[in-house]
């Protein structure tokens, strides 16, 4: 099972003062993999990255790189390189010298340095920017220089700490594609840290969802989205209606006062569970035909679809549909068995309620920039 493992973190714990940042974290990373640490601010994802880079020593646990324990090895002796949140480019050096920095430290012949730098600048589409000053570049260009600088020293693993956080949306999307291309072309391991679930899902081979210093779920983007392990993951990845339910038997669950067929099995009889229904998986039908029915309390046009909040027995559902439903109208909901996902109860159950207090601004506010974790 553990083939091609390049980095293995075993029982890692970190405390900053009284603050337990990482709790007994176990994780292995395969070579040439694009892995993303995803989680809200303060979940420990950056700390994990810094442990791999060598900037933080774990209080407990082992960091293993290609089978060798590297606890205590200083950053400059590790075969990993980092792209920092704000790039940390050297302002007193020009583009060329920034990229050449790591090569010069390694005392590589000048001719070879020149070749490598030119190659790297070409890779990030910055040909001809050699003599440009760092401060004269745009955010996206600086980002590219940072990538070229880190890649120039041919790292085995590239660590990216929210590298796209400072870019605007359009640029961010372009860079996502570009980063993925670079990773595939060079065939090196990327460890990516972000709090943006969309970024994580679209780029990664593997996503590690973290919260409060604990890994909540590891899996492919599809697994994470479709089969969230608990309410936290379900809520954090995409939009979810999370309801209290009771598993009546295999394939039959009761919630919102109705019984639904589902595909999930293996729960005890009458076990209390969390039920996840994604807003896009709900079909809007006539109230009489619906498995559930309720009144539309708000409608928001989102471009591709409408976002409708429906009050069903006091629980506010979010539903995405392409058909406009006027506010105040009563609609019926139809849910396919494969649209229902059952999760065991966890510490997160009940924290993520319905969409009664939902608003766009609120959502944005809960996504502040990652604060320093030191």
């Amino acid at each position, binding site marked *: 099972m553990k083939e091609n493992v390049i980095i293995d973190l075993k029982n890692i714990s970190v405390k900053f003062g009284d603050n337990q940042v990482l709790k007994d974290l176990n994780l292995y990373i395969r070579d040439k993999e694009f892995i993303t640490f995803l989680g809200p601010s303060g979940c420990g994802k950056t700390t994990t990255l810094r442990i791999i880079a060598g900037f933080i020593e774990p209080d407990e646990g082992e960091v293993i790189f290609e089978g060798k324990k590297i606890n205590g090895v200083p950053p400059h002796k590790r075969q990993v390189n980092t792209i920092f949140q704000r790039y940390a480019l050297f302002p007193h050096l020009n583009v060329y010298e920034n990229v050449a920095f790591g090569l010069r430290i390694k005392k590589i012949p000048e001719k070879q340095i*020149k070749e490598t730098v030119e190659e790297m600048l070409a890779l990030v589409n910055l040909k001809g920017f050699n003599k440009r000053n760092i401060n*004269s570049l745009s955010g996206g260009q600086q980002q590219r220089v940072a990538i070229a600088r880190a890649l120039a020293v041919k790292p085995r693993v590239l660590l990216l700490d929210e590298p796209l956080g400072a870019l605007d949306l359009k640029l961010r999307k372009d860079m996502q594609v570009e980063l993925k291309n670079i990773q595939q072309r060079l065939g090196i391991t990327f460890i990516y840290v972000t709090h943006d679930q969309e970024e994580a899902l679209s780029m990664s081979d593997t996503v590690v969802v973290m919260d409060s210093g604990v890994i909540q779920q590891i899996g492919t983007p599809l697994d994470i989205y479709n089969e969230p392990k608990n309410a936290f993951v379900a809520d954090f990845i995409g939009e979810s209606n999370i309801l209290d339910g009771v598993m009546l038997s295999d394939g039959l669950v009761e919630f919102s006062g109705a019984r639904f067929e589902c595909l999930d099995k293996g729960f005890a009889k009458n076990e209390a569970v969390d039920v996840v229904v994604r807003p896009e998986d709900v079909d809007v039908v006539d109230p009489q035909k619906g498995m559930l029915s309720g009144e539309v309390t708000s409608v928001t046009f989102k471009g591709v679809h409408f976002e409708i909040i429906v009050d069903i027995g006091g629980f506010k559902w979010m539903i995405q549909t392409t058909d406009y439903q006027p506010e105040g109208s009563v609609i019926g909901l139809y849910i396919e068995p494969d649209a229902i996902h059952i999760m065991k109860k966890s510490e997160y159950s009940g924290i993520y309620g319905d969409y009664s207090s939902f608003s766009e601004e609120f959502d944005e506010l809960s996504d502040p920039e990652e604060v320093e974790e030191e």
Partner: protein
Amino acid sequence: MKIFSKIYPILVFLFLYAPILVLVIFSFNASSSTSMFAGFSFQWYKTLFEDETTFRALYNTIILAICSSLVATVLGTAAAVGIDKLKKGPARSGIMAVTNIPMMNPEIVTGISMMLLFVFAGRLVSKSAVLGFGTMLIAHVTFSLPYVILNVLPKLRQTDRNLAEAAQDLGCKPVSAFFKVVLPSIMPGVITGFIMSFTLSLDDFIISYFTSGPGFQTLPIAIFSMTKKRVKPDMYALSAIIFVSILVLLIFYNIAQQKSEDRDRGKEKTTKSKTFGVIKTVVAVSLVAAVILVPLIVKFVKPKTESVGSLKGTTLYVYNWGEYISDGADDTVDVIAEFEKRFGIEVVYDTFDNNETMYSKLKGGGVSYDIVIPSDYMIERMISEDMLAKIDYSNIPNYKYIPEQYRGLGHDPTDEYSVPYTVGMVGLIYNTAMVEEAPTSWTALWNTDYTGNILMFNNPRDAFAIAQSILDIDYNTENEADWNRAAAVLKSQKNVSPTYVSDEVFNMMESGEAAFAPYYAGDFLSMQENNPDLALVYPKEGVNFFVDSICILKDAKNKRAAELFINFMLEPEIALANAEYICYASPHTEVYSNPEYSYYQNEYLYPEEGQFKTQNFLNLSPETLALMSSLWDDVKNYVPDPNDAEIVFTPLKDTDTDTTAPAETVMTAEAWQYVIYIGIFVAVCLAYVIFRYARKKYRENV
């Protein structure tokens, strides 16, 4: 409102630059007058470059400024990096408060406390003469440190926190990451801090004054001690040079700053700015090199001579008034150099500006001199406090030139401690253009016909002496009633609205602004050169007569050389050179009876005897001094005049001096070491710059 915004810069320029402009203009004045421009001339620049004392002081100042600002910059940058790493909280704000205290603390407090600390620490390691280059260096580093920290901190705050980590990530060791990446990005702050501490060190007087020792006088101290006579115009020349240098430094700095801002804004480097950069580097390096090398060359060119005697190679520490020895300017004899040449004894020569300063410096401890030249009353006081050593007159055969009338004077009645150097009298100077009939009495200073045109001494002892002459009271009376009577007389002078002056008397009399002024006859001669209308009389009531004598200090380390020096000073040609230079009367028979002497039978310096009474000052009891001081305040405040504030130098508390300590190493040697260090530093910097340039060229050509 618009008009104000236009007037404001004009006013600023006027107030800031008018004085400097005047200074620069007068540095090219052909005459020595400070009020009249007599034509364009470079003579003061010439004099300046010939004056070894000033040059030494300038050189010391620069060495000290470079050393202290370098040390402060390194320490301050390190401290700023440390403070920056601290989290916000009580620890950080505590450290910042401690950092800021030296800036808020009055300099006088810093100066005195540092001196006490150094002297105390010196005692602990039984080193009596602890003050010197080292202590000044510590003091200067202390007061410039906060400025470096405050300049570097904001730069650190601006830089990306991850810079050092990024460098380590790319393979740099932590230390080299700091030097390769963090330091270059905070460099503008470091340079500003360096320049600030450099200029602060350059012009510091108060702290330097308290922490300086023999052999290492800085320019501000040297200039200040010139006030015995007056600030010579070559100081204008020097000030002008310093101003221009600082201006050039600032311009370069601003251009550099501008360039870095352009860089931040993303402007491309132009070829022009590159060429300019090279020129700038060359100019800066050659400036520094010139500053360091010129005095070095001056020093090496100076002839080293052979001489005999066991005293050869020893050092003699001399503490004299500023401008009180012939120094070789304008083809005069350089007395100190001549002495060094003849006897092979190195002379460390420092100057003071008044008796009280000299006294407190010696009493404060931490310094150790062999020779000192105080005035009469101060000699009496120093004898009574056992500060002076008895002179072995058999070692001074030239004492024979001192005539009977100058022997056994009140302050040293038994002729055991002092050898007269210069003598002088206070006379009444008047402007013949304003006063028709020559005055004969001090009461001319009370004449209401000249209200507003009368100048008066701005120091109590001299002012009271005039009143005492009028009342026929002994200058040295201890009778309170006598002092009260004299004070009443001085108060009555307020009717003529006298202007209380010290050095300003030169300007005001030379420019013909005032009719009467009491002053020293020797100084009158130089005033008369600039204004031939001036004349001097010795009033019939009597005048103050003073003697400045050469003494040997009790804790002298080189008493034999000191006696040799005194004897040398009494050699007829040396005494003549000094008398010509100082312009005061000489108590030396071979001088005043020499027909070639410029002031031979000069009516002002050598008036006929017996026409008027002369008295000299003796030491007053502390009670009388206090009385005089408070009465003087009453006099000054009689008609309240807020512009006048009397500064009284209070002697420091008595501390006994350690006389058994071994001879100290010569300060100048220590200073030389630093010169070599700095030379090495500059060479390394130059080599580094060249290396960088070569490497860049090489990389471009690959």
